[in-house]
């Protein structure tokens, strides 16, 4: 059963949804209170794209976890000011714009719903905000669930003409490598080259930027400390390291693809590798896209949530076998 929540926090009016079977008077009232708070990615409303967020919350409700989904200020139903451009909004979120309302929200929810602990989860930029939840070192935050966390800061370019090409990001580098591979194997591409219709400006800029990227990589070879890409979100990485130091149980779900794995490795992470010592569990979802919807991912993500929560935060229903 769902209930709409409206809270006034730090001068913001925030709209959210609670999924809780104990709201239904016909269901037995439960005494445990491990809550789950889910944050949407970027600009999306709190049900997430493809209603993944509400679908996960419905599943967790059935297991007995009161699950909250909230719109951050200016997004979804919550009033507030946001920038005109998407990249500026993303940059603000990645730099922690939602961190203060999140801390206030966690404290309020714990108080209002008598929660003994909270697991905070989020998607993409929401995963970054979720990770920032531990910065206050609140004893309330007992777990993190990060879906497709973004390790890089988003570039905000002006809408006017660009002058010098900026260094390639990890994502752009991989995309360009893929593009070169496809162009080399493309008959049409060779035909354009032979007929002098090739996009010389593209190739000129690309080689320059690839050379620059390769040089940066070579420079870091043999160094004890890996040189991180210039767009690395250092603040987020610090929170990640703090979570590992504090041994906060963390579930990470990401797309199983070669490029995505390379992306995370570039920032010093090991996708798909479980780290028992720091209580990190990382699963990769095959045959899907960043939105984690297609190819059966919507169901698989919900299943991972269920299994991980049942293992780490057993409830009255934890006697049930893990979902397979």
């Amino acid at each position, binding site marked *: *059963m769902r209930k709409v929540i409206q809270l006034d926090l730090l001068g913001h009016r925030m*709209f959210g949804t609670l999924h809780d079977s104990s709201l239904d008077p016909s269901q037995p009232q439960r005494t445990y209170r491990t809550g789950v708070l889910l944050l949407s990615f970027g600009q999306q*409303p709190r049900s997430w794209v493809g209603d993944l967020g509400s679908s996960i919350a419905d599943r967790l409700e059935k297991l007995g976890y009161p699950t909250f989904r909230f719109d951050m200020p200016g997004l979804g139903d919550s009033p507030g000011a946001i920038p005109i451009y998407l990249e500026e909004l993303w940059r603000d979120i990645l730099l922690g714009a939602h961190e203060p309302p999140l801390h206030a929200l966690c404290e309020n929810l714990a108080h209002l719903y008598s929660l003994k602990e909270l697991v905070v989860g989020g998607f993409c930029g929401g995963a970054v905000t979720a990770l920032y939840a531990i910065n206050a070192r609140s004893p309330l935050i007992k777990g993190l669930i990060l879906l497709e966390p973004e390790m890089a800061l988003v570039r905000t370019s002006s809408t006017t003409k660009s002058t010098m090409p900026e260094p390639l990001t990890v994502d752009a580098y991989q995309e360009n490598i893929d593009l070169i591979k496809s162009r080399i194997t493309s008959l049409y591409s060779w035909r354009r080259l032979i007929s002098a219709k090739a996009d010389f400006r593209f190739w000129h800029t690309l080689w320059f930027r690839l050379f620059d990227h390769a040089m940066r990589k070579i420079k870091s070879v043999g160094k004890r400390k890996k040189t991180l890409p210039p767009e690395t979100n250092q603040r987020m990485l610090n929170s990640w390291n703090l979570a590992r130091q504090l041994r906060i149980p963390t579930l990470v779900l990401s797309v199983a693809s070669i490029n995505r794995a390379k992306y995370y490795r570039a920032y010093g992470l090991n996708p798909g590798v479980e780290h028992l010592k720091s209580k990190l569990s990382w699963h990769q979802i095959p045959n899907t896209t960043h939105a984690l919807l297609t190819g059966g991912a919507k169901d698989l993500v919900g299943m991972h949530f269920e299994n991980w929560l049942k293992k780490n935060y057993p409830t009255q229903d934890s006697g049930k076998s893990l979902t397979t």
Partner: protein
Amino acid sequence: MNNILPKNFEHLEYADYLAINGEQLYYVLHPTALPLRARILLAGPFATERPHRYISWVRWARFLAAHGFEVMRFDYRGVGESTGYFENFGFEDWLNDLRHCAEWLDKRPLSVPLIIHGLGLGALLGDKLLAYGIGNILLTWLVPKSAREMLYEQLKIKMANNFILPSNERKTRDQFIADLEAGQVVEVEGHNWTPNLWAESGKYVFGKNQSPSQSPDTQRIRIDAELDALAAHTFGGVGPNPLRSSGGGSSMRLVNPDLTECFNSNYGFLNSALIKLGTN
């Protein structure tokens, strides 16, 4: 930040559920503190479009509330904040949702005209509802010719997703439709399309609805508003980003553009229609 941030009445907004056939139908009401001119029921776009239009749709609701309209928006069953599984519902159910909200608004104190404003799918449903004699004014934005055309358009998302997946499901849109007609379920951006959804879509053609109950003395006004380039891009993903400079580098995408021009012109349409109705 743009300059159309609502100047007031946000504090009056509230959200709740209406009960309908065992499901919870989510709605948000935007009351106005000004003298009430009319009620507006916003019928939103199809499930796959909903998250991408949400921010501007909410800002439109706030703009209207700030100009003397009481506005209600809602999520169709099986979508967004409303409960239920998407695959259990179809166009008939969503039309019932719209009707349910209209009836709920009708029971509120103070009798004023009811405006139905539909975007995409919402325009198709609003067209049907008006034909059934519910509502005084229908405002439509980016209305597809039919529900079939709309679904066909949305299948582009499925094709785009499949194109980047390692799976070998490289089908055309017509092949996906053939699958639906053969009784298969097709998943599109997290929503399971059923054969029933496709079958029902054949009944929804814009402007082809005859009213069985409409009395000749009841005046109903239809406004099919043409959106400017910025609004069409924002509310329907139509055309390129009009704010992008020619020859610019990587373009910045719009999330909250200044739609004052569009909002003002549509506000003008509604004003004229209310005058025509003789209620303003």
